[in-house]
């Protein structure tokens, strides 16, 4: 029973991690909170439903929707952040303008898809939706495995990009000293745009996976995960990718365990209570800010 719950927490945590990485990546590079991240999470899930509805196979729909999310992230940067960055507007004003973009994305999604719960067309999952896979005493759906696999593959790819590619080196250099990086010939705007692409693509992927997991996509799904994502990032240490991943798995496990052993109505209270307790012990979060720069 406990092992099964922890496994369920792993699936949930993996998706939370994908979502939270988006916040921490942008924060690490620009020192700003992007409050349109949850709107992109939601919009991408809707995009995936629309693509599947148009007859595309699920894997292709996911791939296209994730690229769409990344491009939406670049557009977000151009609209909400780049003009303010050019004027050295500090960190609070961009926060507000990102809320503006979030409201705009929400409005468009409302206009296109309308309120209420939306589902992927029946049969979307194919064989993944049927039966359960048994592993010792543990049982999973095929979908669980796919979700975990996709999430871990994306995180592994990100780790590789950050550590071993010139883009990753550029992102880490900009995170540490933007001016010095530019004076070495780095095109800051391009690096920042790519950072937004990655952050938003990961957040969008999380939106699709959550939508599939609960078979429900709605305008409100962003605001339901937004606070959790921010709490995870603070718990992990602002700007730390590894910290966000650890924080996400802690939140996933605590949520699942509190549903199983306490009651589902206290799920968020217990989860946030545990985070609060950890932050009392480690006020700067599990890994502090600079881990992004050493990735």
């Amino acid at each position, binding site marked *: 029973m406990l092992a099964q719950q922890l496994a369920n927490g792993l699936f949930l945590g993996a998706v939370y991690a994908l979502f939270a990485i988006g916040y921490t990546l942008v924060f690490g590079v620009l020192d700003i909170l992007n409050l349109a991240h949850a709107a992109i999470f939601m919009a991408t899930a809707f995009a995936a439903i629309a693509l599947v509805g148009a007859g595309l196979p699920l894997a292709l729909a996911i791939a296209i929707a994730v690229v769409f999310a990344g491009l939406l992230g670049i557009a977000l940067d151009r609209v909400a952040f780049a003009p303010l960055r050019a004027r050295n507007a500090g960190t609070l004003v961009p926060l507000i303008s990102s809320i503006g973009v979030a409201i705009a994305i929400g409005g468009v999604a409302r206009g296109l898809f309308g309120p209420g719960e939306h589902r992927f067309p029946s049969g979307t999952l194919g064989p993944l939706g049927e039966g359960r896979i048994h592993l010792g005493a543990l049982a999973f759906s095929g979908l669980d495995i796919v979700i975990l696999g996709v999430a871990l593959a994306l995180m592994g790819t990100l780790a590789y990009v950050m550590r071993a590619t*010139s883009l990753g080196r550029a992102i880490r*250099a900009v995170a*540490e000293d933007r001016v*010095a990086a530019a004076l*070495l*010939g780095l095109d800051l705007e391009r690096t920042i745009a790519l950072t937004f692409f990655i952050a938003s693509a990961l957040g969008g992927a999380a939106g699709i996976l959550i939508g599939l997991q609960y078979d429900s996509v709605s305008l409100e799904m962003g605001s339901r995960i937004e606070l959790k994502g921010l709490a995870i990032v603070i718990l992990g240490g602002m700007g730390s990718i590894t910290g966000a991943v650890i924080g996400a798995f802690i939140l996933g496990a605590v949520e699942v365990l509190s549903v199983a052993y306490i009651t589902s109505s206290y799920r968020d209270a217990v989860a946030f209570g545990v985070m609060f307790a950890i932050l009392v012990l480690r006020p700067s979060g599990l890994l502090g800010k600079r881990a992004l*720069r*050493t990735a």
Partner: protein
Amino acid sequence: MAASGVNAEALVAENVTVRYAGVTALDDASLRVEPGAIVGLIGPNGAGKTTLINAITGVVRPTSGTIALGTKRLDRLPAHRVARAGIARTYQNVRLFARLDVADNVRAGAFARSGTLSDSEIVTLLERTGTTERDLRRRAGALPYGEQRRLEVARALAARPATLLLDEPAAGMNPAETIVLGRTIASVASSGVGILLVEHDMSLVAAICTSVVVLNFGRVIATGTPQEIARDPAVIEAYLGT
């Protein structure tokens, strides 16, 4: 290492003026750095030396005047395009990426050009600048101060610049380290790189500079060989007066 070749062109600043909100930090300053030359830039604190470097590197835009590398105008380009045109610099206060390792810091120097550096190319640059650290995975912030200064020069050379701007490279170095630094700078210049050296250590300036430009209150008050400068009444006045 082919430091120049394609980029063997002179850096020319002509009549550069920089005003910030009513303050004239640089007033009609001109200088020229030929390939292979070591030009000293000296002057009392606040004379405008760092402002001139910032104007050349695109950090501040001149209010008037022109800056060019060969025939290419630099004074309207953003900083990263100036770097790509062939201008590299080091800082008065070391500005390495402290959390990145030694190898990644040197590779960051190659942001200015396509391709990346192999470990052996990195070691060559470390050797060339007298950097003794050989653990490429060590964090730059963990290196001793003198090593950080040398690593910063290695990072600048990784860009294969036409002109290298050194902002007080000997600051905080002991006399023995300063002598080694002087040899490094001379050998870089002999490979065809033009060097603009901002320095307070007059023994270093006298030892390696081919010419010296003296700034005071944002104006060029003297230009000449180190020997001529040492005898110039206006220079003596600037350093000893008031």
